[in-house]
Structures are given as C-alpha cells and as structure tokens.
C-alpha cells in the first residue's frame, strides 16, 4: 500500500462504476481522472458531460483545474448552453454522475450548503450545490467520493443539499424523484454500497480494517457479509492514473 495513494485507490474504484457507452456527469479532480481511466480501459465509448455546457467524447489531453479551462473547451464534441446538458439529465439520458460533499449521512444524503442548525445563520457557510443537487436528483446512479472522517460521515446531515435516499426505504419515490440515488460511496478508507437506501461497508482499503472504518464513521456501521479488502489497482491502471496526473496533484493530495 505504501506506493498506492488513497487518491489512486479511489480513482481506480470509481472508474469501475462507469460502464461502456454510458453518459456520465464527470466533475473535476478525482472523478475526472476516474473518467479518463475508464475511457482508457473498459469504457472507451463513454461520454462525459460538464455542467457548464460541454460534451466530450475524449477527455482533455492535459490535467484540468476547472471544467471551464481552455483545454476542456478545445476539441469538445459540443459546447453551448448549460440547459442542453441539464436537459439530458432531466430527460433520464444520464446514467451516472459523480459528486462529493462536506457531509454525508447513512442514507447517502449530502450537505454542501451549511454546517449548523440554521442555514441562514450557519456555523460554516459552505459554497452550495452547484450542479450537485441536480445530479443527485436526476442521474440514474450517483457515485460519491469523499475523504473519510467521523465529522463528515454523520448520522444525519444538517442540510440535505443533494438528496440520497432521504430517510431510506421508498423515500425518493415519495418525494417525487423518479429514479437514481447513490450506488456507491468511495472514501479514503473503504467502499460502501447501498441496500434499501442504507450504506453498507463492502470493502476496506489496504491498511484499514472494518474496525478502523467503524471508528471513523459517525453512524452505526453496517457491514456486508462478504466484506473484504479493496483490490489494489493493477500496474496498468496505476500507469494510466500517473500518466494523467504525473505530479500527483489530485491523486496524492495531503500525503
């Protein structure tokens, strides 16, 4: 594990969530690298959407800092109004989307708006939804990537910016969401799947353990019966990740 960073492990896991031929809301940083990795391995015909109004069939050739950077515009397949790509999302044409957040709860609800009981007088004013709430509302599957921290994985978030499974069960259907919800939560310590709208630990990363994950999770941990250690990325996968992010700008942060 010493020479594979948590970021690299998360990227490798996230890339597996993209299936070939799918249309995916990509986002920046680790999700973007996961998209690049998926395109170069098992999902060569996946299409990437960027909410500011860009559609790409090939990722930009160089590392991006924001989705509006010029390399992401050049040779885009299409470039125009945001509503065209958001329209694809609401039409149900987007199979998967990536999202992160400051906080998540056991039902996969994400908070990126405000910490504290009163949104208008918060303890910490977070930036807000951006397109996150839209992706969480409308994409068929949500892939969540977050640092693992007890203050971030909470029993209940202060504000549901991006709806997961609400209070669990058929909550999404009841509030009017037609499909979607988180299919996976990938953290710096492990991978969760969702069963009946509840997060269940599916694997812990090399160097971590079920107990370690439990100690760093703010809700009563549910563990899959077949929980196992997260598979290490192959040499080929690492080569692709490191080729795209040679300085480890995004994949080796904080190490």
């Amino acid at each position, binding site marked *: 594990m010493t020479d594979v960073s948590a970021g690299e492990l998360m990227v490798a896991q996230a890339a597996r969530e993209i299936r070939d031929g799918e249309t995916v809301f990509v986002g920046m940083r680790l999700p973007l690298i996961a998209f690049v990795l998926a395109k170069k391995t098992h999902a060569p015909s996946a299409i990437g959407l960027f909410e500011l109004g*860009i559609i790409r069939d090939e990722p930009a050739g160089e590392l991006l800092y924001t989705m509006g950077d*010029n390399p992401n515009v050049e040779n885009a397949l299409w470039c125009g109004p945001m509503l065209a790509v*958001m329209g694809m999302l609401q039409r149900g044409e987007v199979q998967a989307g990536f999202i992160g957040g400051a906080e998540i709860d056991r039902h996969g609800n994400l908070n990126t708006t405000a910490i504290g009981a009163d949104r208008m007088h*918060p303890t910490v004013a977070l*930036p807000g*939804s951006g397109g996150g709430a*839209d992706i969480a509302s409308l994409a068929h599957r949500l892939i969540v990537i977050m640092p693992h921290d007890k203050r971030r994985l909470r029993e209940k978030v202060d504000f549901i*910016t991006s709806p997961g499974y609400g209070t669990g069960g058929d909550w999404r259907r009841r509030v*009017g*969401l037609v499909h979607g919800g988180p299919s996976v939560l990938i953290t710096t310590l492990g991978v969760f799947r969702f069963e009946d709208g509840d997060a269940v630990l599916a694997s812990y990363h090399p160097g971590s353990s079920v107990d370690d994950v439990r100690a760093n999770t703010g809700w009563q941990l549910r563990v899959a019966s077949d929980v196992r250690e997260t598979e290490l990325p192959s040499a080929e996968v690492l080569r692709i990740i490191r080729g795209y992010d040679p300085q480890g700008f995004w994949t080796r942060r904080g190490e």
Partner: protein
Amino acid sequence: MSIAIGCALEPAIPFAFAHELIRQRKRDLTLIGPISDILFDQLIGAGCVARVEAAWVGNVSAGLGHCYRRALEQGEPRRIEVRDHSNFSIGQALLAGAIGAQYIATKTLLGSDIARTNPTFKESTSPFDGSKELLVPAITPDLAVLACQVADRDGSAELQGPWGVSYEAALAAKSAIVLAEIVPAEIVVRTPNRAIVPATKVVAVVHEPGACHPSSLSRMYQRDHEFFHEYHRATRTALGFDRWIAEWVTGVPDRAAYLRKLGPRWDALDARVKFAPTTEPN
C-alpha cells in the same frame, strides 16, 4: 438593483466589471448567477451585496469563500440574504425569464432542503399526472453582464466556449452590458447566428479585452489558478480582505492598470492570444 454576472460559470467572469462596482461603492446589489467563483465573494466582502441568488458561492480553486462565510456566519461586513439554487434551477429560472414564462415546473431538487428553504419555490403536483414537481419562478435581472471575446459597437457579441446560462440570463435581463474586444461590425454581424444576445438589449459595450482575469476566456487567455489560491490565503481575515482589495481593486484606477500590475504573470497566461483564423469550406 439585480445583476446576473459570471453566468458562464468558471470561465469568462467579468471581474473588471465587479471591481468597478467596488470602486464606485455600489450598495444593496442582488447578485444572480450559478457559480461566479470569487467574484461574488469579493462583492460580498466589499459590502456591495444585499442578496445572493446562486447555486454556489466560494472559490473554485480553494473551496470556501471567506467573505461569504463572514457575511453569513458573523454578519460582516453586513448580513446578506441567500436564495439557494442549484445550477439547473437557476438556469430554469432565467429560462422562464427569457421566454416570459411565470415559472418552469421541474423534477430537480425534489427532496432537497433547497426546495424547502428558497422562499420563491413552490412544491406542487402536476396537473397532468399528479406527480410531484417543483415550480421555479422566473428571474428577470435588471442587468446581465457578459464578457465575450468580441463585440461590435452596437452590442452584437460573440461568446466562444461554454455558455453556461449566459444566453438565458441575457434574454431574461431588462438590459445587458458586454465587455469585449470591440471589432468592426462585419466580423460579428456577417454571421449573426454567433451573437449571444440581440444588440437591441445591450445598453453598453465596453472595450475591455482583459476583463476576465483571473478566470479564463477561451482562445484569449488561460485561467490564473494560483491567483485564486493567493486570494484565498490573503482573505482569511476581514483585514486581509481589505488589504487585498486596496491592492488589487481600489488601489488601481482601471483594468489597464490592473493588467500592468500583473505584468509578466499576465503574459504567462498566453494572454493576448487572439482567435486563430477559422478555416471554412470554400
């Protein structure tokens, strides 16, 4: 006065315009836009803002916006009202404004606390099938401010690169102001499809080709990523913000002086890279 600005999201943000608003000590503005990066943070910190209707306020490179935090957490330099949106909901609000509709019915944000806390939204059921829906009322800004690559003197302006909600914002607004390199009319007008907003709506065209630094403008200059980090570090305290504004905004008379102050850093962004000649079939 309500102003839609930075509507292309991360690129093409008219910082030159915001800085002039600060220099002129404008007050009680309503800012409208999905994600305007640190432009909103600066106007909030300078005390120009009474309300924000946005999907995101912060610093795209560094995360949190310190001035936005101080305003909401401590009421400094003043309390501001926030009407939360998502990118899609604010896009639909501006679309409704653009076509003169009272609202748009959408399925986004159902179950989100944004739907609950934005007082302008209305949860409803579809008159067609009884399904739940969120009604997003129109936003019609007093003014939309667009930064474009080129414009003619009449206001026909071409924005290359992602549009975000710029088109909808310009049509929804009562008036528009364009910041761009002013070029002869025939360049823009000979292909009128390229104009992002009818010139009839444009009340001013400002010749300001470097208006967007530190954000990027497709084909003209790159984004100055480090500048965003520097701003983040410098503005952790209100005093630090005041110093930053004194150095970069009130301490310079205009955009030309700002760009001169940037010096070689400006050139390093491939600045002044203009359009490449376009190959057209012939």
